[in-house]
């Protein structure tokens, strides 16, 4: 094991990040979301207090360690944890046409899905679900959340088209972001998340209905593989970002 796995890894990632079976009660990862779901409020409250204390500590200690105003990409990337997806190189453009690289996305927790604007199948359902999740989640992470849609159809989804799409869908640019990249960059990003897709016919692209939650540093915290999965689980995963041992 190269790096301690601090989060439940994406399922498809296989054994490299396979967490050794730990047979104690609390550390059992599978049970943790269940635990929250069942609302052991007392313990939760204790942890929240501890978290607050910790943040105070961090804030108190940190000023000396804060970095230069305009760090280079390499420096930014170097500061990311090893499990951050933002290590992936490549240039992207937003719906505003602004160029960015993935390390620029660090700083906000992020819900990520791969769609394309001409999609007539389940993409609208996914977008609706993302809206609902963002609306329902509460807490600091939820309020800071940015939902990100990566286009699987870079040929047709120009920044202009993406911007129009966001307007059509009523997606607020403060909390929503669309990304356009070269086909090969899109493939790499999708592959990293385990998203499968392929062109079907002349204009359709069949693709995974996957929703991924990244923390502020780009580490996968939760993945919902399909529309059969309970969206409440994603809501809870977002809220769990606020809990210290959920980080």
């Amino acid at each position, binding site marked *: 094991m190269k790096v301690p796995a601090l989060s439940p890894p994406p399922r498809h990632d296989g054994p490299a990040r396979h967490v050794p079976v730990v047979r104690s009660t609390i550390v059992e990862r599978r049970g943790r979301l269940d635990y929250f779901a069942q609302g052991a409020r007392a313990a939760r409250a204790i942890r929240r207090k501890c978290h607050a204390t910790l943040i105070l500590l961090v804030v108190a200690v940190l000023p000396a360690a804060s970095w230069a105003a305009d760090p280079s990409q390499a420096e930014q990337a170097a500061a990311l944890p090893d499990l951050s997806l933002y290590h992936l190189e490549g240039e992207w453009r937003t719906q505003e046409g602004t160029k960015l690289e993935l390390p620029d996305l660090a700083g906000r927790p992020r819900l990520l899905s791969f769609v394309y604007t001409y999609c007539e199948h389940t993409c609208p359902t996914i977008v609706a679900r993302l809206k609902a999740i963002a609306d329902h989640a509460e807490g600091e992470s939820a309020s800071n959340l940015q939902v990100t849609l990566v286009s699987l159809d870079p040929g047709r989804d120009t920044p202009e088209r993406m911007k129009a799409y966001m307007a059509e869908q009523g997606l607020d640019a403060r909390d929503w972001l669309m990304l356009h990249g070269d086909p090969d960059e899109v493939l790499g990003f999708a*592959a990293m998340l385990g998203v499968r*897709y392929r062109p079907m016919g002349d204009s359709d692209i069949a693709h995974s209905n996957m929703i991924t939650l990244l923390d502020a540093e780009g580490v996968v915290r939760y993945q919902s593989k399909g529309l059969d999965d309970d969206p409440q689980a994603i809501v809870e995963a977002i809220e769990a970002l606020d809990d210290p041992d959920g980080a």
Partner: protein
Amino acid sequence: MWGVFAAGLAAFALGAGAVVPPDMAPIGAGDYTPLYKEEGEAREVHVEAFLLDRLPVSNADFAAFTREDPRWAPDRVKPVFADAGYLSHWQGHDPMNPEDIANQPVTNVSWFAARAYCRARGKRLPSLDEWEWAAMASEDSPRAGDDPAFQARVLDWYGTPAFARLPDVADTWENFWGVRGMHGATWELVNDFNTALVSGESRADSELDNSLFCGAGAAAAVDPSDYAAFMRYAFRSSYSATSSIRSLGFRCARDLVELETTNP
């Protein structure tokens, strides 16, 4: 045979001034029948002419790359790009020593690492269709899919456990296009490995799972008894972009067009 004709065309396309690097073979254009066809899709897929490495990438080749770009060295690679098995077979071996494993195909590389290697060489990974098309050739035919002897030889390798020592890259048979080791050395990575819309449950994959996937339609195996193709398909759908597998290697490809423009 039209395949020969296609090869001739490829050579013609290369003719005027373009130089094929000696380590790559031109693969003629052609049509091949993929294992799965989606509803409404043509039975055959057209593959444009392209260039393919004559040999799989060896341990020595890859070791040289990791020295040029230490981000891909076994002790440096980030877990988002390769899992814990990455290059693990180098432990206790010298990947540069021809007496040791230098000339064996490199395996235990992730898709990300293979992609980075090809990019560093000005190449790319072959697409799934390109790989399958080039791999359909026997020694004397570009299209030996229906040849029982060819099928038997391919299956021979699939049926052999991977514990046998890998052959040196040059010690495998050369096919019609002048490419070695497509069958009988290792599985090989392709660029768009993630195009198989599988749920992990092969018996349900004739229909697109509409919970897991956005899209319409059903896929049907064109020839369900082509179990060599089934095995490749199943294998490709089993790994992720970070997986390292002892029997999985790769080689690189290049566009012909790109060659024409870069070799005046």
